[in-house]
């Protein structure tokens, strides 16, 4: 732990250096003290290590100065062993292993490739091994003859351990510890977290009245040993707010406060806890923590960082918590729901956990490289969230500290490499494998519609042959026949119409397309061999006037695009990704399904439109506006073939294309019809279905005669399309069926250096997969919740604890390995883990246990003594007090101001206020998340869980409050305190608008004592006299300026999307808004108390 410790050569040591060198020592002693187990008696010397450390500061400093830190610049001074302060017996896991791990395992640990002298110090055998020349590493009871110890105290520079060039350095106290440990017999313990979970006996404590449940016994035992006195229970106002914030992420309503505060029943507290646990807002709050671990985001994360549709997974998580889904099922469905027998839609949605990783669509990216990156990420997320292991450290080499080999890493990776997912996400929102998530109603309806379409297929396809023979000539059925005057129709010999930059053929009032009415455009284009100039093919639009209209264009990159401009000046432009084949005829079909407002799950994607090129669907790209269609495109411009404006002078320049067989229908044709159109000319580039292939191409087609038989199918197709558009897509996992999971060991983690091929498997230090089970994701899922697996229950209950107490029992929830911080209460953790398993993985049961404990219910008041002895509240002699998370701070502001829209659980991501330019400053210029446009209305006030998460530029007000970027698995948030946070709370329109609404509510409330009312509404508690005075002073000081300057008041009240209440005096409302802003910045409000 001696990182970042500087050692300036030959200079007087400045204070910070002394402090720095002392730090590790103090921390080590603090931890060893906290790690002591109840069966040990604490000596006075260890009972208050922090205080003693502070006291000894002055005398320690000079001593440290004579034993400088190891560095490349300064010669290494061997440290002399000094008497150990440990009086009691030394415990390997508590006292010895952390020092070994930090200083020795790197070269004498699990990694066989970097192991020096073939010596292991991470195994009992290694510790007792005999070295070359018969020297013994450790001789229990005899430190002076143990080579291990001799090498710590030698004065020979090339002999001393750790070697100077490692920049590792043992302190005299640590060396003394080693000596004493050997002297006491060098007892060995396996690493604690790999040991089986055994439910420990609940300790007895002196103050039994403080024990509400076993949690308290474990906590109190240590509190009593430390000499501290546990705090009394917090008052009821504080408790109800604390429990509400911790269960739901929202403060209680006034009614909820009263319901608890005035409840005389003896189980009032429990009832309150039960009420909150049953609230659907519980799941929303819990989901937020899990989504940090799942690295959930609404964009891909790499390169273009386009929108990705996976929010149904987010809603699955919420529902799972609300349904109190057992954690084993919660695990199995997320890891391998798709592989369960007869997997349900919901179980497939759950597998989104492993589709939340960042993906790329970067042009030059190499598939193999990204397959290995995705697998690494999935191993990291899964092992961090369930196992608390830093497994990804073993991707380049055997783990340096934990018994995890590189081979085992790739065996874990193998579980995730047997998927059908492509390496490139194509920057699409629905990168396969993905599914539509239908409502039950839609599922039923689809089941009825699909047979209708199948029937139409059966009816229609035999006709193709007939058409080939019959070549009917009637054209009457075409709703708009643009080709009439132009001979554009597909007689095989027709040349079609040549179009270049000078072409303009006006055809009068034809093809008046309408928003809301389906249409289909079908035509053939002879694409140019060369030339890169965009051309308008046909349409009703004058680009100079910019009035409404539409046009179809051949883009410079040989793709087809369509532009629609409404009388509301809404511009929608979309382009197919498929490029036309040069020098040959291509068939193009553009279909519009008549939806007026399209699927909002896919911003910047014209979901109502499809483009087919040569009978294959083309992905869209470059949609210029979000896909809301409203207004009219009906225009007085004539229908024009060609690209030239009237009076154009650019004759004969640029590209030339030939257009023919243009047909325009005011209907959405069904697929068989579309296929017929694509077969009206022979083309080796058009891939047809088998029946269509049988037909001879080049026929003339009259759809009119078969149209009646297709009406039902068209209706069904339309409706299916509508359902599909209204249905969200979500990314899922899907296993390849033609291969078994495997991976290659990648030398140094390099995808281009594959070595041994290994099957899927789990680390040997943990229990094996179920015997006989196929080693695949499903087996992995079951293994993660096998009660014999010692890690998941420990890791998960530790995370629950962290969510409620602000710090884990293991304060490194991401690392339960030997480099992680050992548990402050190991027996409590094991008791909780055992309880979790025995309760059949009942999550709400575990939360309730913690919430019911006296430990949790304590007041947060800190005495000076506590602050000295236990500043970080590791002992929990007081209740948890810390700043709320970003989402809770915002949601609370919306809640107390009455702005929040929290009725609906789940749904599309929303875009509340964000400063201009945050996305654009970083975004790829073609990204569909380049332009941020805030939502309006209720979407501005949804819970923060639903805020659109752009991974490469997360919502700034949340990032400023330590929300992770969601680029990788995160199970713990930092909790910083910065001026930028103050600026958010003071100035973010979201908070200013909320302050206005809080002020408005206050002024309109029935209570006379408004200052108290405002405070009470925010805090759930009445202010005292001093607080009231301050609030009144603020009001009285700011009011005159708003009376004198009505403009100022108007400006302040205009902030936010919602209108100000005009029944109130603007000056008064403005002054109250300032008071509300003051209250909403209170430390007490943004903290859990």
């Amino acid at each position, binding site marked *: 732990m001696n*990182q970042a410790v500087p050692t300036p050569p030959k200079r007087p040591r400045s204070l910070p250096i002394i402090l720095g060198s002392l730090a590790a020592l103090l921390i080590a002693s603090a931890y060893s003290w906290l790690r002591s187990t109840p069966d040990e008696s604490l000596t006075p010397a260890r009972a208050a290590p922090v205080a003693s450390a502070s006291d000894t500061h002055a005398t320690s400093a000079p001593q440290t100065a004579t034993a400088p830190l190891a560095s490349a610049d300064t010669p290494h001074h061997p440290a002399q062993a000094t008497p150990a302060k440990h009086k009691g017996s030394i415990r390997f896991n508590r006292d010895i292993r952390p020092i070994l791990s930090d200083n020795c395992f790197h070269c004498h640990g699990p990694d066989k490739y970097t192991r020096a002298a073939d010596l292991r110090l991470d195994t009992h055998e290694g510790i007792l091994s005999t070295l070359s020349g018969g020297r013994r590493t450790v001789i229990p009871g005899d430190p002076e003859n143990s080579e291990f110890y001799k090498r710590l105290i030698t004065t020979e520079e090339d002999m001393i351990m750790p070697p100077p060039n490692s920049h590792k350095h043992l302190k005299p106290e640590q060396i003394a510890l080693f000596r004493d440990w050997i002297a006491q017999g060098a007892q060995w313990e396996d690493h604690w977290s790999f040991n089986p979970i055994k439910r420990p006996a609940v300790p007895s404590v002196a103050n039994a009245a403080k024990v509400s449940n076993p949690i308290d016994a474990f906590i109190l035992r240590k509190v009593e040993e430390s000499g501290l006195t546990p705090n009394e229970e917090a008052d009821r106002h504080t408790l109800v707010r604390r429990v509400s914030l911790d269960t739901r992420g929202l403060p209680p309503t006034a009614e909820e406060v009263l319901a608890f505060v005035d409840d005389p029943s003896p189980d009032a507290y429990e009832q309150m806890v039960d009420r909150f646990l049953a609230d659907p807002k519980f799941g929303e709050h819990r989901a937020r923590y899990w989504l940090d671990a799942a690295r959930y985001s609404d964009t891909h994360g790499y390169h273009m960082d386009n929108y990705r549709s996976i929010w149904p997974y987010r809603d699955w998580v919420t529902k799972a918590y609300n349904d109190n889904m057992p954690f084993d099922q919660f695990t199995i469905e997320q890891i391998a729901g798709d592989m369960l027998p007869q997997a349900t839609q919901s179980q497939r949605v759950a597998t989104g956990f492993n589709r939340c990783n960042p993906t790329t669509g970067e042009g030059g990216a190499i598939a193999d490289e990204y397959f290995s990156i995705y697998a690494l990420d999935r191993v990291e997320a899964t092992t961090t969230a369930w196992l608390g292991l830093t497994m990804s450290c073993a991707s380049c080499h055997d783990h340096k500290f934990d018994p995890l080999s590189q081979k085992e890493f790739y065996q874990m990776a193998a579980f995730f490499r047997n998927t059908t997912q492509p390496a490139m996400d194509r920057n699409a929102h629905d990168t396969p494998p993905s599914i539509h998530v239908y409502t039950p109603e839609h599922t039923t309806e689809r089941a009825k519609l699909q047979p209708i379409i199948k029937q139409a297929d059966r009816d229609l396809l035999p006709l193709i042959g007939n058409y080939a023979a019959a070549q009917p000539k009637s054209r009457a059925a075409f709703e708009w026949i643009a080709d009439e005057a132009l001979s554009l129709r597909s007689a095989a010999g027709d040349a079609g119409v040549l179009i270049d930059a000078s072409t303009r053929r006006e055809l009068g009032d034809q093809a008046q397309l309408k928003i809301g009415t389906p249409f289909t455009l079908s035509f053939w284009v002879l694409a140019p061999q060369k030339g890169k100039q965009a051309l308008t093919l046909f349409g009703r639009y004058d680009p100079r006037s910019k009035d409404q209209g539409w046009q179809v264009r051949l883009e410079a990159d040989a793709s087809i695009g369509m532009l629609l401009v409404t009388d509301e000046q809404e511009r929608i432009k979309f382009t197919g990704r498929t490029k036309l084949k040069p020098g040959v005829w291509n068939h193009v079909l553009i279909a519009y399904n008549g939806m007026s407002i399209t699927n909002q799950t896919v911003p910047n994607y014209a979901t109502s439109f499809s483009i087919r090129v040569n009978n294959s669907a083309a992905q869209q790209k470059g949609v210029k506006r979000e896909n809301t269609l409203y207004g009219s495109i009906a225009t007085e411009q004539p229908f024009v073939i060609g690209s030239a404006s009237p009076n154009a002078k650019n004759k004969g320049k640029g590209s030339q294309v030939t257009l023919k067989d243009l047909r325009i229908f005011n209907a959405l044709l069904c697929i068989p019809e579309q296929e017929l159109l694509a077969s009206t000319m022979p083309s080796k580039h058009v891939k047809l279905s088998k029946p269509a292939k049988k037909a001879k191409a080049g026929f003339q087609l009259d759809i009119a005669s078969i149209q009646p038989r297709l009406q039902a199918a068209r209706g069904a197709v339309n409706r299916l399309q509508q359902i599909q558009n209204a249905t969200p897509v979500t990314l899922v996992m899907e296993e390849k069926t033609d291969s078994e999971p495997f991976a290659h060991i990648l030398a140094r983690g390099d995808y281009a250096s594959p070595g041994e091929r290994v099957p899927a498997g789990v680390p040997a230090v943990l229990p094996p997969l179920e015997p006989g089970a196929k080693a695949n994701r499903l087996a992995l899922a079951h293994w993660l919740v096998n009660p014999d697996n010692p890690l998941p229950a420990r890791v998960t209950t530790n995370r629950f604890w962290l969510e409620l107490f602000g710090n884990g029992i293991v304060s490194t929830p991401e690392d339960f390995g030997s480099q992680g911080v050992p548990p402050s209460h190991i027996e409590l953790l094991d008791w909780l883990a055992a309880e979790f398993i025995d309760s059949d993985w009942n999550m709400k049961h575990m939360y309730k246990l913690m919430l019911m404990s006296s430990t949790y219910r304590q007041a947060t008041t800190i005495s000076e003594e506590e602050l000295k002895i236990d500043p970080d509240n590791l002992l929990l002699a007081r209740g948890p007090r810390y700043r709320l998370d970003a989402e809770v701070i915002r949601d609370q502001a919306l809640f107390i101001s009455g702005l929040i829209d929290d009725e609906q659980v789940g749904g599309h991501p929303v875009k509340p206020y964000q400063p201009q330019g945050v996305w654009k400053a970083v975004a790829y*210029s073609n990204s569909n998340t380049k332009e941020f446009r805030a939502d309006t209305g209720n979407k501005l006030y949804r819970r923060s869980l639903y805020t659109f998460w752009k991974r490469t530029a997360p919502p700034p007000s949340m990032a400023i409050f330590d929300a992770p970027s969601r680029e*990788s698995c995160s199970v713990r948030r930092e909790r*910083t*305190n910065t001026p930028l946070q*103050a600026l958010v709370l003071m100035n973010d329109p979201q908070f200013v608008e909320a302050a206005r609404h809080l002020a408005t509510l206050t002024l309109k409330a029935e209570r006379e004592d408004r200052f108290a009312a405002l405070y009470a509404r925010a805090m759930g508690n009445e202010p005292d006299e001093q607080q009231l005075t301050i609030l009144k002073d603020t009001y009285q000081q700011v009011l005159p300026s708003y009376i004198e300057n009505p403009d100022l008041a108007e400006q302040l009240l205009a902030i936010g999307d919602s209108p100000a209440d005009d029944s109130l005096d603007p000056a008064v409302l403005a002054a109250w808004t300032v008071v509300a802003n003051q209250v909403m910045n209170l430390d007490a409000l943004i903290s859990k108390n």
Partner: protein
Amino acid sequence: MSFPIEEYVQLETRRQFFTKMGKGLGGVALSSMLANNPLKAAMNLIEGRGALGASHFAPKAKRVIYLFMSGAPSQHDMFDYKPYMKLWHDKDLPDEIRGGQRLTGMTSKQERFPIASSIYDFKQYGESGAWVSELMPHTAKMVDDIAFIKSMWTEAINHDPAITYIQTGRQTPGLPSLGSWISYGLGTENENLPTFVVLNSSWTGRKDAQALFSRLWGSGFLPSEHQGVAFQSQGDPVLYLSNPDGIGQHTRRIMLDGLEDMNKLTYEQVGDPEIHARISQYEMAFNMQTSVPELTDMSQESEETLALYGPDVKTKGTFAYNCLQARRLAERGVRFTQIFHRGWDQHGNLPQDLPNQCKDIDQPCHALITDLKQRGLLDDTLVVWGGEFGRTIYCQGPLTDTTYGRDHHPRCFTMWMAGGGVKGGITYGETDDFGYNITKNPVHIRDLNATILNQLGIQHDRFTVKHQGLDQRITGVDEARIVREILKG
């Protein structure tokens, strides 16, 4: 992860806090004692310094200005002159030169790899005789102040991983950026401004510019206060800086005074020292509301200075504007300023786009160095220029007499450094006749980062923080070398 120094400092600060309680708030106002926010405490205790407390050795530079050309500028057309290529124009790159190196997905299917010799004239400049193309006439004037490294290399071959790599030491997200490391290690010299400022620039070359990512200035596992603060070119330079319309500074002061009184009352009730930290953060925020507008107000800059940077300097968000801003930040002690300029990804149509890109940056770069020098700031300000990798000598897409494109090339590229203890007028490293392989003195991007830290007085392999059980450092697990050959003695 843990931050032992700060943990200690934190305990220590708490101790002092209680001894000072009687002296009122002033003595401890700046002490933050939140468990996960150790730096503020460290900063105060050691007077404005960071986690390192003191440098490992005497620093040559106090601060860095890093001019990042995102997209990878073409070394062949700007600095790495290869006259021999004229003879090879439109001939295929010999296999033995390519040496089986992997290609991006964009050119790997190309049938041939014809060499595109640069169409730009190169000349030698200054006493040092450095080669510079006609695209960079202003840079050409200052070659004796800068050190070119022509032998930079990296492993990453695509933009996203490559820029993440050079900025954070790893190709995938999650690690702290160079600037945040430096912020963490050295702390601030100006408490009213961020320690690490990011300035994103507009550009005029290729429109389809590669994305940037907030991870490029993110703090990874370091406390998030060390993440770069990206100044906005529209609206408030610092997000949420301005009071809302209708609240003036006077009203804000009244509100803050009341807030402080209320928070003190809470402190009296619960005794949580974090509350005092919060009060001081509000004071700093209030101060920033003055110091940042003062920083971005260029009205006091002389016409001479403005002329030095060129006409774009008057347009917010241009590279020229940002360079002047960077000088002002340097004057005010901001530790790390990084300017990003995008649009350098010339896969095709290089002759159309590259001159515009160069025009954006050439005069401002020269102006920045000149300006810093005139004010005596260049000696202790390290300026770094470069992108995430280089470009191929062979052509991507159609090769004609007038146009060509170049694909990604990680095997060699050119960067330059100036000031901050770096020698001027030297060129380090060499590439082969094709500008394809390094033939002398390779410099990996981690060597560059180690060298930057070195100039700041930090020994890179001793500047580590434990995360996921490992002592993490910006230079990663591989050996990194300080490029001493370009450093002043």
